[in-house]
Structure formats: structure tokens, C-alpha cells
């Protein structure tokens, strides 16, 4: 299979949940090395887009295509999407009592390695790798001794998402409202992590409501999602405009044309 020009091509994507259409024709092209921000008012479909990309099965794709490196993504299970290099940073990471962070991460990493026909990482090497990445994203040593996300504060959960990203080294990271509920310090730590992981080989889609995060993680492109469609695209200046004027002017522009 030849590698396409774009890492991710979303063509005219329509997504429904229980017969209610949430995404009404999304078009998006992302190249390796790029950071795209998707902004929009609440209810615009931002999380639905993230979930559809990650392979959540209670959404129905009623029309359109998602091509990841030229391959039809909808044919892949969530675990295969992850193994192909897609990572979703959840907006509300779930707590999984009784499943230790270490066991979880080692199983995940070795799953990926097996898929790539690599040997599993021996326990000692894995712990070493974990320490390295912990330092990189400034995550507390304590947190990895616990069950997955159990008892973590909002900020700790988000940092844990970035920590996992650092460990799994995805090619396409989709960060769903990673900044929601974060104080300034946590925001800085999360942004540093994302920035450190940025490379010409990988791409990031940042889904966010507020412009604040984008001061720390500079996007190459900013798209506005409203009523299930991307209604405006621009560069980082578009984000600043939204910060100053809110979403109303875009809503009016779109609604008056309808």
C-alpha cells in the first residue's frame, strides 16, 4: 500500500448516534508534522469527531471516508487503530480500579510491539522506559503505583494521558479537550509534553473550546466546528479572533447563510 500524501484524510464524513446526525460532512486533511486545532462551541460535535476517529462503536458512520495513511480506518478495530499509531487523549479518562498502571502500560506497549513484530520489552527495560517518560512529562512517580486513573485529580488524569502518549509514541495524536479543567501549572506541563513529542513524522489534532492552550501549543491550522461542519479554517490568528470575539460572529455568519 503506498503512503498517501496526507497522513489523515477525512472526506465528507457524516456521523450519527441513534439516528441523530451529529457530524454533517466533515472535510479535513492532515499532513505529518502538522498540528491542527479544532475549536467550536459546545455541542458542535468535537468529541464525536474524536470518538469516531478512535473507533467508538456506538457512532454510525453514515457517509464519507476516513483514510489514515491511505488505509480505510473504519475497517480497523480500536486496538488496531492504536497499533497503527493513533492515540486518543480522552476528555474524561475513565478510572479502572484493580488494573495497575504498570500492568496496563506494559500490556499496551507490548501489544504494539507484537503488532510491529518486535520482541516484548523485558520488565527491567520497561520500568526504565517508564521512568524516562515520567520525567519528560513531569508526572508524579506516585501516580504510576496506582490503578489506572483511580483517585487522580482532573489535572493528574490529563497529565496521565500525555504520559501514555509519550510512552506509546503515536503517529497521530488526537487530544480531546485536554485543557479542560486544568490550572495554569498543569496546562504548562501538558503543553510542554505535547511540544516535546512533536516531530516531522507525527501529527496532532487538538480539540479545544478555549484558545488558551493554543498559546502554548502553536497550531499550524485552526478549524471551527459548528453544527457538525467545519465552517471556517485559518491559522493561529483565527484562534485569537475567537478569543476576542467569541463564537457568536461565526454562528451568525453561518446561520444567516442557511
Amino acid at each position, binding site marked *: 500500500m503506498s503512503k498517501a500524501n496526507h497522513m489523515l484524510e477525512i472526506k465528507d464524513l457524516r456521523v450519527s448516534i441513534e439516528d441523530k446526525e451529529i457530524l454533517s460532512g466533515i472535510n479535513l486533511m492532515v499532513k505529518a508534522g502538522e498540528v491542527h486545532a479544532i475549536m467550536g462551541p459546545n455541542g458542535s460535535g468535537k468529541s464525536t469527531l474524536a470518538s469516531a476517529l*478512535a473507533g467508538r462503536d456506538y457512532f454510525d458512520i453514515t457517509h464519507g471516508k476516513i483514510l489514515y495513511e491511505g488505509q480505510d480506518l473504519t475497517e480497523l478495530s*480500536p486496538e488496531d487503530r492504536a497499533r497503527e499509531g493513533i492515540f486518543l487523549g480522552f476528555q474524561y479518562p475513565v478510572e*479502572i480500579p*484493580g488494573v495497575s498502571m504498570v500492568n*496496563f502500560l506494559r500490556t*499496551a506497549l507490548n*501489544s504494539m510491539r507484537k503488532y510491529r513484530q518486535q520482541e516484548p520489552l523485558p520488565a527491567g527495560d520497561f520500568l526504565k522506559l517508564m521512568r524516562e517518560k515520567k520525567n519528560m512529562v513531569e508526572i508524579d512517580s506516585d501516580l504510576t503505583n496506582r490503578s489506572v486513573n483511580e483517585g487522580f485529580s482532573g489535572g493528574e488524569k490529563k497529565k496521565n494521558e500525555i504520559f*501514555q502518549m509519550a510512552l*506509546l509514541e503515536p503517529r497521530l495524536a488526537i487530544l480531546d479537550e485536554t485543557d479542560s479543567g486544568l490550572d495554569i501549572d498543569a496546562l504548562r506541563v501538558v503543553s510542554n509534553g505535547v511540544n516535546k513529542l512533536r516531530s516531522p513524522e507525527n501529527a496532532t489534532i487538538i480539540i479545544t473550546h478555549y484558545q488558551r492552550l493554543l498559546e502554548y501549543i502553536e497550531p499550524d491550522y485552526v478549524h471551527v466546528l459548528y453544527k457538525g461542519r467545519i465552517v471556517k479554517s485559518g491559522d493561529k490568528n483565527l484562534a485569537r479572533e475567537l478569543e476576542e470575539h467569541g463564537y457568536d460572529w461565526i454562528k451568525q455568519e453561518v446561520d444567516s447563510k442557511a
Partner: protein
Amino acid sequence: METLTATDKYLDLFKQRQQEITDGEPGFVSQLREEAMASFREVGFPERKAEAYKYTHLEPVFDGELHFDFHPRQIRFDDQELFRCDVPMLDANVLTVLNGFFHHPGEPALAELDNGVIYGSLKEAIRRYPDLIKKYLGKNARIQGEPFVALNTAFSQDGIFLYVPKGVHLEVPIQIIHLLLSDKNQMVQHRNLFVLESHSTAQVIICDHTLSPHMYLTNSVTEVYTGENADLDLLRLQNEHNNSCQVTNTWIRQEQHSHCQHGTVTLHGGMVRNNLRISLEGEGAETHALGLFLTDKMQHVDSYTVIDHQQPHCTSNQYYKGVLDDVSTGAFNGKIHVFPDAQKTEAFQTNNNILLTDTARMHTKPRLEIYADDVKCSHGATVGQLDENALFYLQSRGISRDESRLMLMDAFAWDVISKIKQPPLQERITDLVSKRLRGELSRCNNCAMHCDE
């Protein structure tokens, strides 16, 4: 010709074999047997619709073609070679009970330690210490209205006796391995008696295994006394094959400030009914009843627990979890009975179950009878599936759906296992449970039966 009812069959059997059974035993034991049989005659087996047994109809099983041994059979059986119920790193005194009789080739029937601890054959203990036994045998496990206890009281001839005198700490745990090995379908009724005097401590692990594919029916009674400030940790690991039926009747009586933890882990067994009755008869007593069962295929596990808070300031906790697959079924009936004098009672009950298929079925029923007014009681029961959000989270990190489900099931089981004392035991059970969930434990040691065939 009139066909005999199951009840009649047992009444007849007792009459025929009474001589053999009571031969050489003290009068009070023979008396107890007669009273038990009289009680059994009155009540008979529970009917199909009987509330307490509505999910587990046992009469047909007891009515089957079964062989009974009234003497230990001479089976050439070398425990070391043929069977090991291994708990690595656990230093324990292993006692083997073969088809209901204490099996001790070349060893004395009863061990009597310098510190006064006695353990071994109940039959031998009755012979050697009748006065001690008389104080406890049959005084807790009730025969009135309890047909299975009554049957056992009439027929049982051996089992394990453990006695820990005042203030003594039994350093090394006792591991009792119940083995069923026969060339016919067989019924076994052993009886255990554990007496812990005040301020003593002990740990007992009981493992149930079947070693040949025949149909086995076990009806056992375990009577436990924990004196003032005594501490008992009792764990039962049920691992009989799926062609067996096991009925356990555990009666625990606790004096003031005593502490007891009773855990049951059921990995295999065609039909299992665990009756557990705990009576808190002294102030400040504390009791924990834990249960974990994993069923698949057509297995059935029924836990029936009653905790009587007779005195004030006692604490009880029932924590039972089950994972049911295929068309297996389960039941949990947990009663908390708080008597009028039992003020400041704290009683909690939780029963969480996961159904892995649409065809598995779990019946759960909490029963609270509270007659005191200054108490803290709670109960909660859930029957559900694995958390889809948690599953998706694991999958989104590259872990296959199958492996994700297993991780969540391991975590679910760990919640109970983590409450078991002794790290080597926790480890061993975690390993067994993990293997069981992955279908890797279909064959228990040397049993010729493969439970997945």
C-alpha cells in the same frame, strides 16, 4: 410397588448401617445421630418451591445412584506423588481427607503439640477427648429445620478436628485437602470441628478436589467456635469437577471481641451450595464473609449466608462477587439479622456480579431484619456487564478486546482476593483465578476429567 422417596432412602440406610456407624463411639454421639435422624424424618428434603432452596433443587441429586463408604477404603494413594495442592511459599501443615476419612499413612491419627494444640481425625478426637468434644459437637450446627445438617450429623464418621487452647497462636497454618477418589459415583459426608479458645489465633485453608470423573456428592458440615478475642482466618477453595455436587454447611459462633474471616473461592464444581451461618454472641465481635465464584458452561453456585447480630457493637461484612459465563447460573441470598439488643451494630453487605453472556443468570437477594434502632446497616447488589468505557480505554491503547475483558475480570476478582490474608495465598489464588478466566484451568492436577470437554 411403592417407590421410596429420597428421604425414606436415607432413613432406611441409617437404620441398616447404624450399628456400623455408631460402633465404638461414646453414647452422646450416637444420641446426637438419632436426634438428627428424627429431625430429618420430620422435615425431609427441601421442596422444589422452598424459598431457601428455590434456585438449587438438591433432592434429585441426593436421590441418585450413589455409593457410600462406611469405612475408609484401602486405596493405595501416595499424596506426595499423586496429588499436590500447591501453594508455593506457604508453610503449612497439610491434612488429607480422602472420601471423608482422615488419611494419614504412617502418621498418628491425631497430632498433639506441646502447646496444647490438637489437630487431626475428628473420629479419633471423639474417642480420646469425649468431654472436650461433647462441649462443642452439634451445639452450634442446628439439626432442627436443617435437613442437610441433620443428614450429616447422622452419617458423618470423620473429618478434621482442630483445637487451639487459650492464648495459643497457631504459627503454621493448617491446610486441609479434601479428596474424592472412587471407582463409583459416591456420596461423602465429612464433618469438621474447629475450636479456638479465648485469645487464640489460627489460620485454616480447605481445598476441595475430585480425582476421578465419577459423580460425587459431598454434604459437609464445619462447626467453628471462636472464643473471646480469638482470631480465625478460614479460606475454602472449591475446585471439584463439573460432574460433582457440593453442599457445605458452615456454622460459626463467635464470642465477644473475636474476629473471624471466612472466604470462599469457587473455581469449579457442577452444583455448589454454600450455607454459611455466623452467630455473633458476644459484644464487639467482628466477622467478614468473602466470596468469589467463577462459573461457565452449566455450572451453578448458590451462596446462602445468614449473620445473626445477637449482641451490641458487633461488625459484619459480606462481600461476594461472581463472574458468570455461558449458561451458568448463580444465586446469592444474604441475610443480616439484628436482634433487639444489638445496638450499635454495623452490618454491610455487597454482592456484585458480572454476566459475560445474555444466557448466564444471577439471582441476588439481600434480606435485612433489623430489630434494634441504633444501627448502621447497608446492602448493595449489582448484576451487570463489564464497563464499556473501561474496555474502550484499554482497547484505545492497543490492547485486544479479549485481553481487555480479561484484565477487567482480573481486576474484578482481585477486589475480593486482595482481602485474603497471607501474600503467598493471595498470589496463588490470583494465579488460579487468572488461569480459570482464561480457560487454562480445565484440568485440576491429576483429575482425569477435563472440565471443558
